């Protein structure tokens, strides 16, 4: 049965590849005005990402990788270009429609966790469902399942300040995936964690990716980036290297 499932998933992915990519960026530009000077944070960017991919966005700070992630997460709009998510042009959506897309299709994992300090682990995980107006009973059962899946069942009533860094990021990941999004966007997810805990978190994200969730990680950590199946290297707002196009990264 497991083999059959895998084949089905793979087939879906293949079909998806032929029909529409999950993410298609075309001619994206994002310009910031700082006083008199203008900064091209993103410059004529064309990227396609298929459903289920595991992508690392790398580059030095100021290269535009965070801006790209914000744009992918519909937190920011491009000045020029189009962004199609699951075949739908999302750049022209109203703010409320974009909020709905973020709610249903996108999950965020942040470097500094961004848990609400007054809410318990369980309440933090339930937050996206609460915002989406899902009834309390369903929230409770889904949170209970998530707590079990992420090994947090003993910590459900703990507030973030009573949790370790690794536990906090696990809560954040549980929260990011509770709405079963298509894409998981992670911005330096291990940046505030020690190496061992960071490895655990990355492993967890990779397991989620293996179940079909598209995983996009922003990192400046070469080793972490190398674990992804595809690397995008940014420099001065441009895509300097795409391993899917240019082959594997030369080891630095």
């Amino acid at each position, binding site marked *: 049965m497991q083999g059959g499932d895998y084949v089905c998933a793979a087939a879906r992915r293949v079909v998806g590849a032929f029909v529409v990519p999950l993410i298609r960026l075309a001619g994206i530009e994002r310009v910031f005005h700082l006083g008199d000077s203008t900064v091209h944070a993103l410059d004529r960017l064309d990227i396609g990402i298929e459903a289920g991919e595991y992508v690392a966005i790398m580059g030095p700070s100021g290269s535009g990788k965070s801006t790209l992630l914000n744009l992918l997460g519909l*937190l920011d709009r491009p000045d020029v270009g189009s962004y199609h998510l699951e075949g739908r042009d999302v750049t022209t959506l109203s703010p409320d429609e974009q909020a709905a897309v973020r709610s249903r299709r996108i999950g965020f994992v942040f470097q500094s966790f961004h848990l609400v300090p007054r809410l318990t682990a369980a309440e933090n995980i339930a937050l996206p469902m609460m915002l989406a107006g899902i009834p309390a009973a369903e929230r409770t059962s889904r949170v209970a399942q998530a707590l079990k899946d992420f090994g947090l069942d003993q910590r459900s009533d703990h507030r973030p300040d009573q949790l370790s860094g690794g536990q906090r990021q696990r809560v954040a990941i549980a929260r990011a995936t509770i709405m079963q999004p298509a894409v998981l966007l992670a911005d330096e997810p291990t940046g505030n964690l020690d190496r061992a805990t960071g490895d655990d978190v990355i492993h967890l994200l990779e397991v989620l990716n293996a179940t079909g969730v598209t995983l996009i990680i922003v990192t400046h950590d070469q080793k972490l980036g190398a674990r992804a199946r595809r690397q995008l290297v940014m420099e001065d707002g441009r895509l300097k290297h795409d391993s899917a196009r240019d082959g594997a990264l030369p080891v630095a």
Partner: protein
Amino acid sequence: MRTADVLRFARDAAGGYPLRTGLSVLAMAIGVAAVVVLTALGDGARRYVVDQFSALGSNLVIVLPGRSATGGFSPANALTTTPRDLTVDDAFALTRLPSVRRVAPLAAGNSEINANGRLREVVVAGTAAPYVDIRSFKMAQGRFLPEADWNRGAPVAVIGSKIQEEIFGSQPAVGELIRLGDRRVRVIGVLKAVGQGLGMNTDEVVFVPVSLAQSMFNTNTLFRVLIEARSRDDIEAVKREVTAQLKARHGNEEDVTVITQDAVLATFDKLLRALTAAVAGIAAISLAVAGILVMNVMLVAVTQRTAEIGLLKALGARGATIRDAFMAEAAMLSLFGAFTGYGLGLFGAFVLRQMYPVFPAYPPDWAVIAALGTALGTGMLFGIMPARRAARLDPVQALMKH
């Protein structure tokens, strides 16, 4: 987001910062409590005065000697200001008027009572039999002044309950001879305690026939004439008839003042209502201040929780959802503050009533509704701006604040 979730989220957010929440609730509570207590005081004063006047008796018309100057000063007035005496005969003449039910003359002065080896100052009021009915007094013992010719009163007296207590104690007073100034009179009755009435404590008054009082104080004029109209509708008629009658008797000169209880009452009522409203208005300023404080608190909350707002947006919250959550929080602070203040205000009014039992310090309904309404209104109104600011925050910028 569901309404119940918005409310719960707002409640938890407010509870997450107890000091800040506590202070704004306190400010709102003080504002509302101030309105409730001050209007209770103002309205209490109004009721007190109204009660005092009502205690005088019903359908009352009062005649005062002298013309109250309402036309301003003029030399003609100056020449004719010396009023004629308002005499007992004048008063008796009023008894025959059609709309008049009862008339009682009143002459008053201070004297000493000396009996049973004790001595004290008293107010001596000279009047006649109808007085007890006009004022609706009740007798504790004996009877009131007898029906008799007003110009030839017998040497008898009716004493107030406090006089009876202080002079006679537990001994019987009725039938005893007392010395009143330089007269010897016999006590024929004791009034039931009635308490304060128009600044004169009836319990400390000695009533004698009007002619006796006039000769004691060596005067011909009356202090007042109290008239009871046949009905409430006859009050105006009584006023007209009395004025005409006395004018005719006084050489066609209108030299008395006729006031009706209703007119005095209405004036005081209006005056004290205006005062209460003014006091409420002043107290309402503190409500506006409390509203501005709620706004400040909410602005601080938006700043403090900027990262959280960014997060909520990233998790799919719409601007309207965030606005609602902050509005709900502001409303909760105001609501909680308003009801706490209402409770405090009622307690304050209760303490006032305990301290001054004669003073009916109850806040009027309109003030309570206005205070609660203003508190909620200002809280919500001043909550709009911070809530909109929160809703408009740029999620990328907001998420970077940590």
